[in-house]
């Protein structure tokens, strides 16, 4: 875990790319999940967005 955090701090560009994917891709699917009433899928997708924001919190310096 410590190694992963260290990698993220040293690779802010790559980390932001991962975070960007996690905060943009799920919201597109969330619309269809909500339309279809798939609550389990909504929770998974929301979890990914939360993960994206948690990853951003780990990046110090720029941004």
């Amino acid at each position, binding site marked *: 875990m410590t190694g992963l955090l260290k990698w993220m701090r040293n690779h*802010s560009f790559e980390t*932001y*790319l991962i975070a960007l994917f996690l905060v943009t891709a799920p919201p597109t699917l*969330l*619309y269809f999940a909500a339309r279809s009433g798939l609550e389990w899928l*909504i*929770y998974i997708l929301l979890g990914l967005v939360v993960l994206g924001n948690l990853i951003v*919190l780990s990046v110090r310096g720029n941004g």
Partner: protein
Amino acid sequence: MIFILAIAPIALILFLMVGLRWGAARAGGAGYLAALAIAVISFGAGPQLLAYAHTKALLLSLDVLMIIWAAFFLYRVVDEAGAIRTIGLSLPHLTSDKGMQALIIGWVFATFLQGVGGFGVPVAVIAPILGGLGFAPLAAVVIPSIGHGWAVTFGSLGSSFQALIASTGLPGEQLVHVPALYLGIAGVFVGWMVAHAAGGFSAVRRLFWAVLVLGTVMGITQYLVAASGLWNIGAFIAGIAGLLAVIPLARRYRGDRQDNGRLDGRALLIAISGYAVMVLVILAVQLIPWLRGILDRVVLQVDFPEVHTSLGFITPAGAGRIIHLLRHTGAVLAYAAILAYFIYRRAGLYQASAMRRILSGTVRRVLAPTVSILSMVTMAAMMEHAGMTDALARRLAEGIGILFPFFAPWIGALGAFMTGSNTNSNVVFGALQLRTAHLLGLSAAVILAGQTAGASLASVMAPTKVVVGASTAGMAGREGDVMRRLLAYTGLLVLLISLLTLIGVWVIGG
């Protein structure tokens, strides 16, 4: 307790950015997580509501991000050609007075850019120019940030004012006069603040009359254009009037050096052609019906059903924001950037692999701001859908009663800070302000003028805009410093609007 919970995510972002000097992306992430937890635990937001709020936020973010990406791209195209340096080197020929340079570029030119572009474009474009002229990075961001605030409501081709009309259902002719007047008055104070940011109180004293003349010219122009029904181009025409008025004024404030050297007119002409192309493309898209018709064919719009919290707060069904993908301001800026690239390339201003450097530079610059904007807009959307925004505004309105006119601009300002734009603030709070004005028997036109003018002036310190400005001036990660400086200027301007709104209510009555 509800009020404290509702305001907690915004307070957290402010504390992290201003107090702990966190960057906007990290603070935005923290604000998002706080809003999500509070919306679920205390406001009864369910999975469906959260899902739709996230999708709506993605569309709202796309609306803003398209412009930011394109503005950065245009900036990189111009900068790679050395054009910004050329413009920067030619300005001292007009005046070597730093304060006057700040007024010309950071106020008048910023007004013009807000008129044609908006959405953070003035700061993104001007901050690097001021940096190139030798202004400190902090001043380079703060000056255009304050400088364009007065022009937001009638800038961006009138989108903010149009949002006020849409959210209240009142005719534009009824709404236009008071905010045009308030913002015109505020514009003069904005000029003095720009002078102060550039050179302290000595610059304010020295440039007092120059600001008064320029502010009066631009303010009256904006008022007359907007009041005549052309509110879409109010700030744009005001900016042009200011640029024309500034030429004779600059002669009176030439600075210490009487001889400012010989100007390379051809080089300057090629350098500014990038921005001239931008203006031409924007005007062409606005004024040529067949071109507009072609670009209007690709539309992104999503319908959202009614959702409600377990506490009974309802967000009615409705179509999400319509995005004309090919006619979007961001798309138009991208066309301008591509045209500018070919002009500069033909003029031989690029070295090998220029496009690769332009693209990689753009991606690296926009990545962190993109993430932070997504987090903050999603936070705002969740707060709106969960009833947190409504609870916040209602408590503010109910708690202050007869003094509501004084606080109406602060509600607008809060909305602009939260959502990142005057437009969104008007959408979120316009109807609420109108309802409260009716309940208290106050003039709706005056209260709504307070709303949009407060939002206009405070939108400059929305974290999303601060991120844009800071990143273009090499201040990424130091957004807290920028916000701290902007807080004082913006607070005074919103206070001015509060007093004007109080006076307006006394004069016009109910």
